[in-house]
């Protein structure tokens, strides 16, 4: 397998961005709730190198309304992506903003961002809220995928109820041309998320799940015990993408854990590279 994409990273430790935008320190510590030391961008890229990956999707979260902070604005994500062609920027908008649709269009058409990140628990909305129809329609029209946080959330104040997989079914069903990714295998509701993915080919799962033990043991529990690995290999191999959730876990550790699960080489190639490229419309 050559190269690949980490479909789920948060660039919260990038020191250069903290120096340029001091408010991002508070966003990292108080809003996203991560305690690691800030690091030069070079270290992020070396993480990709030693994990055998070429690119990373970098995600913001518009939590201005609910948490009083932007965990990177769309403009800051675009600025970061200009520092390295190995970074693939996604946008985030608060679906309850009046101008949410326009902001997404601007982020894609003017800033060059390639997807939309939504965090129902942190942004406090239900994915099947009918008020989001226009936003989903716009993402579909723009041809960009939506990466949803799903399942459990670590941040204090974020409620699990917003991330239950069943709240995503209407989106998958009503927007069949819209590609959506449920992050973190929607843990602990992995079987529910798998049921949705089996039914809806436009629904993907990312591997960025780690809630106890360590990456290898946790993923074995989720992807071999909670659901047999054969289900992912045989039925969902085109709907799984590698994601680490860096910096809540190092990319190297999650990559090693996914590779240790027992997938075929063909399936690993799909998980680490081809499926992500498909989601990104053939890019990067």
């Amino acid at each position, binding site marked *: 397998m050559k190269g690949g994409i980490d479909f789920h990273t948060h660039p919260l430790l990038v*020191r250069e961005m903290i120096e340029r935008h001091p408010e991002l320190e508070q966003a990292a510590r108080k809003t*996203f*709730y*991560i*305690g*690691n*030391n800030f*690091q*030069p961008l*070079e*270290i992020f890229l*070396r*993480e990709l*190198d*030693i994990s055998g990956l070429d690119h990373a999707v970098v995600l913001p979260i518009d939590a201005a309304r609910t948490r009083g902070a932007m965990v990177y604005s769309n403009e800051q994500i675009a600025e970061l992506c200009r520092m390295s062609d190995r970074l693939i920027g996604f946008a985030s908008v608060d679906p309850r903003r009046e101008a949410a649709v326009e902001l997404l269009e601007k982020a894609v058409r003017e800033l060059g961002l390639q997807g939309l990140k939504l965090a129902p628990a942190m942004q406090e909305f239900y994915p099947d809220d009918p008020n989001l129809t226009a936003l989903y329609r716009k993402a579909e029209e723009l041809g960009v995928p939506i990466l949803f946080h799903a399942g459990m959330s*670590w*941040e204090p104040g974020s409620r699990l109820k917003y991330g239950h997989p069943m709240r995503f079914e209407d989106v998958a069903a009503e927007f069949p041309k819209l590609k959506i990714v449920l992050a973190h295998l929607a843990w602990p509701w992995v079987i529910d998320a798998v049921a949705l993915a089996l039914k809806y080919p436009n629904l993907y799962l990312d591997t960025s799940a*780690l*809630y*106890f*033990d*360590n*990456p*290898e*043991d946790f993923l074995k529990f989720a992807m071999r015990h909670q659901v047999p690995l054969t289900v992912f290999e045989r039925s969902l191999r085109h709907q799984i993408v590698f994601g680490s959730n860096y*910096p*809540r*876990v*190092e990319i*190297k*550790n999650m990559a090693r854990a996914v590779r240790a699960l027992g997938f075929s080489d063909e399936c690993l190639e799909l998980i680490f590279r081809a499926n992500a490229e498909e989601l990104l419309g053939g890019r990067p």
Partner: protein
Amino acid sequence: MIIKLKHYEVRSRKDMEMIDVTGLVEEAVAESGVTDGIVFVMTAHTSSGLLVTEGIECLERDVLAHLERLAPKRPPEGVYGYWHNRYLDYDGRLGFNAGDHLKSILAGVSCFFPIADGKIVRGGRQRVYFVEFDGPLARKMMVQVIGERREGGEG
């Protein structure tokens, strides 16, 4: 009495790596002006080490391999499984690098050398290594020089 503290950033490139920092220690001593005294070197991190050994690549590999054998990243089975494998609320993430912390303890986090005539006194084969156990990361290393400047000395 001269007391000078210098901070360095050491950037590792790999998961585990031996980085020769002897030149940085010599630099800090030279800049301090101390001719007779002592120099302390310390890593500021608990998943990295600071040690002294012979500066050859084969030995670097052996040091890393045997520390990994003694304190593996993969948790041992049974009663020696790592309690550190759990969510750390102060960090917003799980701790699962107990093996790297243990390697740091085994390797040690500091070393010192005498200074005479403005130079560190060390064995001909001794080199100072910053040892990364959980990289790549930008790490902090401190070098403190304590001593006196003797007039006519080389410092």
